[in-house]
């Protein structure tokens, strides 16, 4: 027994000592310095997860609490000259306890308000994997860990295995070899650039690829087509149509096969193609590349497709046939074909140029997320602003990321997976009546943001109440506080508003603790000064 007491007194002696305090405060300060640099390089979320909300940082905080507590305990019973000391340290302990309440029970989220649309959904900054089994109407929300690094998980949800979570990732393109690939399923990697901007594009005709065969870049549209169609595309035909066969790659113009090209009574262009069995395949090339059946529905089973080149003359359209390109030159009123094999091609729009970086007809590109630390530049996350999860269903593994939900099938029904943020439903609803932004006179810089909202709470008899939320003037309602946080444009001079929403159960304790600490330190110095005078 005596030994236990001795041991306790020994530990108490260490924990309550000024040396222990100095060590712990030093560790705490070093951790903070580390945290601020991480914050500056990798952003607030990463720094929070790496340092401020990590177990070891909480451990330092716990030791600090212990140090303050023990230092106070060993100075009991109460001595008059230590009144200030007690109050300071009691204040600090109170702040710690208040912060702990906030950490455990606090809510920190935001609510998005569109004009005149009631909203009650609070978005919390926590990652959730939502899995919807469409067949049996079951829905699961799997909370994902608040980790700074990639983390392996072992969670099974109705046969779906959740393997890995990447809290910050970027998409990496890999090319997968496939010797069985048909020749018309090639893919390409291009750089389009001028003196001002540069962008890389990957286009693919393979149905296994994550990349599409069409991409819009501002006013310009890129169409990636099988290379076999190029010669056919450049053939001159008065109709401006080309027709091709998906199965064998055969391509021809109406003139070559003497097809019937005419207009209906209402003036709609059509083409008729004899299928060899005496039946006619009907196309309306101005509306759809797919032929139509007698009831005018699309015949998706037909191997034939049509393209009306006339549709692509007005706006910037670039046709890429593997390693060759074709565009319409308005001045010459003709289609121009260029090869990318040996040279960079000049495009006729805003001195843009096109470079072929890679062309492949025996591999296809896929995008897989890979973990990177987020990178912050001038206060914004410029890289790694993507989260991803890897799941297994049956024998196949899939990636989904925060930009691209995933739809799978387990043989019975469809399963939809989505990476999203946690949501809380408020028991009342907020509606944005108006968002106002004042600007500094004569400039475009905002001087203030203001939201005029109305609140409707079914539980109360007050009916609709109106509130004015602006910087430094939040709305307090039902334990929650709503602050003007941000805004987003939804149309010309029309804005939606974002309010940050907060519930802080530790608030009172933190305020009390702060007051005690400051009051205590002043008292402490006054007592010391009096004592000094008395001894002097």
């Amino acid at each position, binding site marked *: 027994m005596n030994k236990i007491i001795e041991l306790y007194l020994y530990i108490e002696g260490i924990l309550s000592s000024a040396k222990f*305090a100095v060590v712990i405060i030093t560790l705490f300060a070093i951790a903070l310095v580390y945290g601020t640099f991480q914050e500056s390089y990798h952003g607030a979320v990463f720094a929070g997860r790496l340092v401020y909300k990590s177990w070891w940082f909480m451990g330092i905080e716990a030791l600090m609490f212990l140090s303050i507590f023990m230092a106070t305990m060993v100075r009991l019973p109460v001595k008059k000259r230590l009144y200030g000391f007690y109050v300071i340290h009691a204040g600090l302990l109170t702040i710690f306890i208040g912060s702990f309440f906030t950490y455990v029970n606090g809510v920190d989220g935001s609510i998005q308000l569109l004009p005149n649309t009631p909203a009650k959904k609070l978005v919390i900054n926590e990652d959730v994997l939502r899995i919807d089994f469409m067949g049996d109407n079951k829905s699961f929300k799997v909370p994902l860990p608040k980790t700074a690094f990639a983390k392996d998980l072992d969670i099974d949800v109705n046969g779906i295995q959740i393997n890995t979570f990447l809290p910050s990732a970027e998409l990496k393109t890999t090319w997968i070899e496939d010797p069985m690939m048909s020749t018309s399923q090639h893919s390409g990697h291009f750089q389009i650039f001028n003196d001002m901007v540069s962008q890389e594009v990957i286009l693919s005709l393979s149905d296994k690829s994550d990349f599409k065969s069409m991409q819009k870049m501002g006013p310009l549209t890129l169409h990636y087509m099988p290379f076999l169609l190029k010669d056919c595309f450049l053939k001159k035909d008065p109709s401006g149509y080309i027709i091709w066969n998906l199965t064998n790659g055969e391509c021809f113009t109406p003139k070559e096969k003497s097809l019937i090209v005419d207009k209906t009574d209402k003036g709609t262009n059509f083409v008729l193609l004899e299928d060899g069995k005496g039946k006619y395949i009907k196309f309306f090339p101005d509306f759809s590349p797919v032929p139509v059946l007698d009831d005018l529905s699309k015949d998706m089973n037909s191997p034939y497709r049509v393209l009306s080149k006339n549709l692509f003359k007005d706006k910037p359209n670039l046709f890429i046939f593997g390693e060759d390109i074709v565009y319409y030159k308005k001045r010459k009123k003709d289609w121009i074909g260029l090869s990318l094999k040996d040279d960079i091609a000049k495009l006729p729009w805003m001195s843009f140029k096109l470079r072929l970086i890679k062309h492949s007809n025996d591999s296809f590109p896929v995008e897989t997320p890979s973990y990177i630390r987020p990178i912050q530049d001038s206060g914004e996350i410029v890289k790694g602003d993507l989260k991803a999860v890897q799941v297994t269903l049956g024998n196949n593994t899939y990636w989904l990321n925060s930009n691209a939900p995933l739809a799978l099938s387990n043989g019975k029904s469809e399963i939809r997976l989505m990476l999203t943020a946690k949501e809380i439903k408020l028991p009342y609803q907020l509606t944005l009546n108006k968002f106002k932004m004042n600007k500094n006179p004569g400039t475009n810089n905002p001087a203030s943001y203001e939201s005029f909202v109305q609140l409707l709470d079914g539980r109360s008899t007050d009916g609709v109440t109106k509130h004015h939320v602006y910087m430094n003037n939040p709305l307090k309602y039902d334990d929650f506080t709503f*602050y003007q946080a941000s805004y987003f444009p939804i149309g010309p001079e029309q804005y939606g508003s974002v309010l940050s929403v907060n519930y*802080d159960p530790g608030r009172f304790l933190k305020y009390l603790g702060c007051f005690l*600490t400051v009051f205590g330190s002043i008292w402490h110095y006054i007592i010391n000064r009096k004592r000094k005078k008395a001894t002097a």
Partner: protein
Amino acid sequence: MKKTILGLFFVIFSLQTSANICDSFKEELPLQAGGRVKPLFVLAKESVKFLTGKSKYNNEPQVVTFCKLTLIDQYPEYKNIPLLVEHIESKELVGLPIDEKFMSADKLLLKKDLIRSEIMKQKQSTPFKKDLNKLYSRVDTYEKIITKKTQMFFSTETKTWVSLNEISSLTNETLPTVLKNNMKDYIESEGDHYLLELTYVKSHVYSWALLLCIIGIILTVLLKSMKLGISFALATIFLEIAGMTMRILVSGRAPVTNMYETVMFSGFGALVISLGILYIRRDKVFLLAGFGYNILCLFMMMFANNMLSSSISPLVPVLRDNFWLSTHVTTIILSYAALALSWMVANITIFKMLAKKLTKKEYRYYQDLTYTCIKVGIVLLAIGIILGGVWADYSWGRFWGWDPKETWSLIVLLFYIIIVHGRYTSWLTTHRFILMSAGGFMTVMMAWFGVNYILASGLHSYGFSEGGAIFLGTFFAIQTVILIIAYKQRHKEI
């Protein structure tokens, strides 16, 4: 012969009229620019400085330069006004020899698109990109002045702010008459409050304060007269209060919203606090520390123009709360001022120690003096941080968010708390205490300047090569060398 005389006559005539027109560009003319109304003199002074990097062009009054730029069609030679190009890569881009610093405005204007596209090309914010942004804004400012878009004139007819072109289209009067009437009408309808800024800028109040400080410190040291010193300190404080009051009246807010203002306020605060401490502990060293630190601040305000901009511009929305600005920020800056005093006293002690051997008792005495300043600093800093937390809670809904600025202020507090607790251990001897107090101000500098100049620029900006970071780096280096020398010296003695 006739032709030459006629030509000469024309030249003289045009010079005559031109002189007349720019005479009507009075310093007091009210203009709306950069989101607020200011006297022409202020805009002209800031513009000329920003464009040319020098306070004057052609040795003529800034308003004349500004007038001639505005009326560039009549003064085509002003298209050659040299604009400042700083970064080597920027010079390369616009085709300026590396040993030259200026490029004529019309040539640079042709490169505006090139500069723009280069900015777009640079993905990460390197010093080059930052300089390009500055250069672009310089060319843009020039273009906006000559196309009369920067400066809006008060229209007597519509009572609104319109461009110079619109003014001419609204009336048939000559420009000088219009401008004369404008000023009169504006003052009649809105008052002459804006003219205070002219008084403020032209009073050079901080130069006078600097002069008083220097005389004060010399008298205190040479004549060993506390009384003279205190009277000069009081006079300095009076001047600085006058200056700050004018600034507050012009900007309508507490003078602590940018680096320039915080430097100004901390210098003032340190002098006030030093007098306050002097009242309790009569030691000359506080007065010297207060003077010394005030002089450093005034020097920075005057000569570190690259880092501290003296111009008054509108605040971002979140800071627009005078109550919290004037409580939270002023408390923090006052605490930095008190800690600056402890830093001065500690360094003075170090130099005394290096110059002549201080006795152990004297050394202890100076430790005590330093500690007095630290105590004031700690309490003020704790109050300031808490007020910041309360403000953040009040306007953002969180008391604490581990934001770098607030975290660094906490690091400063923790550092000084380590000193306070260290005094109760055997680890912190008098010598180490003095060294730590002298070095501790580096954490203050980091929280005050470093967060903005080093941390805010992030990993990929190589922030260390820029104005603010160079200043900080130099400061850290000098202080560290002093600490090392002092540390070794004491070791030899023992």
